[in-house]
């Protein structure tokens, strides 16, 4: 309950206040989690202070399908805590919650678990001038005001330092199976199945994750058998080092390139052996992104040197 006249998102958490003071208002400052997702090639000048977000799970409310967690918490700790109550969230494993949100990359089961950005219901961050700012709201459905949680997710800490988020959680399905199918057209596999949690393809083998009621998982496995040799309970393929996102309808073009790859069918995330040339964003998008950065961090003190639009 809030006091009359007090705004709802302003509940004071001294831990977050301390973090805001630490971020300060003037000098260049960078935020680091566990550095497991550190942007490649980003080097900090010697005068840049490095801070870390506070950690800890504030509250998990399984019946509301929500968890409030501080950004410095490790994703694996969060995953374990959610699992105790039979739930999960779409953050990819490893690193910190804040790092996963700053980078915004989805997990390989993106089809079944949803995207990182769609799971962020509320975000609290420290602004370039040291203020604690909140966007979104503490419920699963909310269109009050502009969508700052979306803007902050994937912004690489260049618009504000995320210190606490409320994430939507989901029940863990009763059964979950990873199976492989040899020599099938991955798109035929994808079309045959009803909402698979994952379909990966390396040009020869297709891996699927099927989740849900055991009878349904079995019947889906049965359908797959019509396409080729099916092996259940297999390991996932080793992912190649270079991760990119391409149009999901274009993944077959990787076949011609001659290098090893793993592609996520229906999503378009691909892991390739050789790095692909960087495609710059449209100039209008770059211009707009610069204006966003200038509004949120006029002096460029947050994570100096990082420019997500380049």
């Amino acid at each position, binding site marked *: 309950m809030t006091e009359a006249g007090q705004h709802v998102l*302003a509940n004071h958490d001294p831990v977050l206040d301390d973090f805001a003071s630490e971020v300060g208002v003037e000098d260049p400052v960078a935020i680091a989690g566990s550095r497991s997702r550190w942007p490649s090639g980003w080097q900090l000048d010697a005068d840049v202070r490095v801070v870390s977000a506070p950690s800890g799970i504030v509250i998990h409310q399984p019946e*509301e399908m929500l968890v409030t967690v501080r950004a410095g918490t490790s994703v694996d700790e969060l995953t374990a805590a959610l699992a105790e109550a039979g739930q999960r969230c779409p953050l990819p494993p490893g690193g910190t919650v804040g790092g996963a949100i700053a980078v*915004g990359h989805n997990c390989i089961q993106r089809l079944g678990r949803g995207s990182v*950005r769609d799971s962020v219901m509320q975000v609290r961050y420290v602004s370039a001038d040291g203020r604690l700012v909140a966007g979104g709201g503490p419920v699963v*459905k909310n269109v009050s005001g502009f969508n700052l949680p979306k803007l902050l997710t994937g912004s690489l800490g260049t618009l504000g330092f995320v210190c606490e988020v409320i994430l939507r959680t989901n029940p863990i399905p009763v059964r979950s199976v990873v199976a492989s199918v040899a020599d099938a057209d991955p798109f035929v596999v994808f079309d045959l199945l009803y909402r698979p949690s994952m379909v990966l393809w390396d040009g020869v083998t297709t891996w699927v994750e099927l989740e849900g009621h055991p*009878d349904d998982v079995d019947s889906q496995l049965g359908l797959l058998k019509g396409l080729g040799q099916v092996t259940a309970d297999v390991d996932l393929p080793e992912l190649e080092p270079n991760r990119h996102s391409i*149009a999901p309808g274009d993944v077959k073009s990787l076949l011609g390139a001659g290098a090893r790859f793993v592609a996520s069918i229906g999503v378009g995330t691909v892991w390739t052996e050789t790095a692909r040339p960087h495609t710059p964003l449209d100039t*209008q998008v770059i211009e707009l992104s610069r204006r966003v950065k200038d509004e949120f961090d006029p002096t460029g003190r947050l994570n100096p040197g990082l420019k997500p639009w380049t």
Partner: protein
Amino acid sequence: MKPRSLRNLWRNRAGVARSGNDDPVDPMVAQLADALAPERVRVDSVARALYAHDASVFGGGASGPVCFPTSLEEVQAIMRIAMSHGRSIVPRGAGTGLAGGAIPLGEPIVVSMAKMDRIIDIDPAGRVVWVEPGVVNLDLSRHLRPLGFHYAPDPSSQQVCTIGGNVANNSGGPHCLAYGVTDVHVVAVEVVLVDGTVVMLGGSCDEVDGYDLRGAFVGSEGMLGIATKVAVRLTQNPPAVKTLLLSFGTVADAANSVSAIIAAGMVPAALEVMDQKITVAVENFVNAGYPRDAAAVLLVELEGMPGSVEADAARVADIGRDHGATGVRVAADDAEREALWKGRKTAFGAIAQIAPDYYLHDTVVPRGRLADVLAEIYAIADRHDVVVMNVFHAGDGNLHPLLLFDGREPGAIDRVHAAGAEIVRASLAAGGVLSGEHGIGIEKQMHMGAMFGPDDLDHQERLRRAFDPYCRVNPGKVIPAGHSCADIQSLRSVPTGVWG
């Protein structure tokens, strides 16, 4: 101000633009007519009166010329012409918004996107369809069904509302509980900014580099630019569907069943509650087969593979009975299922039969607080002597109290607004939010300060300023005056002599 005939305008536009009444004809209107076509720029009083409203209860709108562009280039031209005349613009879809988002303030150019209604390209491998923003929500799903897909967000207004309006309001619907609201389904938006620049936000890739400007645009209530093209996801049609109707002796039992269903680890496609007053109204209207004697009914839809649908149906029925359900009915066939949904989706039409006016509210509370807040809403309505009916997306705690009134009765609308404000306060106090799907518009602008602090509002305004530094795109909405750039000036700076 006298209505001007476009024909006169058109006749004169090459020479001195003057109407038959010797009024000086607005050069801006002449430029608009030139850039579009005279019949697609309306300045007559009928059009301007029609487009001064949306489906909300708010009056006070004042429209400038109403434009009906048919292409990206025409939308760009409108933006440039508006800029050169210092005029604001307001984008508009079907005008079904309930928060006043499309209401023109300060006689802006109204840009109706209704004529840009082509389904451009369906990409089944990428599971994406590109559409123009004027495509009607239900038309899109109807078009996709035979291909094995549909568009998941299904607002109750889906027979008329447009994808552009859905994107701007980040609209929801009964089936968004399992599938997510609009922003989960939008992969790209082509936007014309205030100066006529075109930006493609997002793209066909799942993870586009840079800021998530697409995500920031969805739900921006027409204040960041005009969407001219949208790519949305295709959702597979479910192999099995089961619809259950549970009846309860109290509204609280229905609400508590909803919490218990979610707590049991199920996420049904839809969990909708209707109280007795609205159920009876619906029955009188369409005869959907709802029990008239139940204090509340809970409509549950389970979608997916047959195994989970069957198992969950049994669990839902058990949970309902444990929470006092007096009746559990499973729709036997498609006809019965469709009748039940027809009842739910025509609820608002049913109201029109029994009260001249209604105000449909929209707040969200934590599911666990549904029963308390509902009790409070009934008490608030009583105190203000207003009839309230509740029909809502219970699964995500999204309340929709319907306040009935007769606008001709002196003081009625004031009582309704007072009750509405209390409902908002009660929802916030329970840990909820101002709006789950209708948006802020002008309706809840004055409540924004109760949910957000000054710093939060300042950052929302910064986002808006990055897109529209001039505050000319749908000014006067969402962000309360005082936190908002130059809204007041822009609303008052309509050049003199333009509209009299």
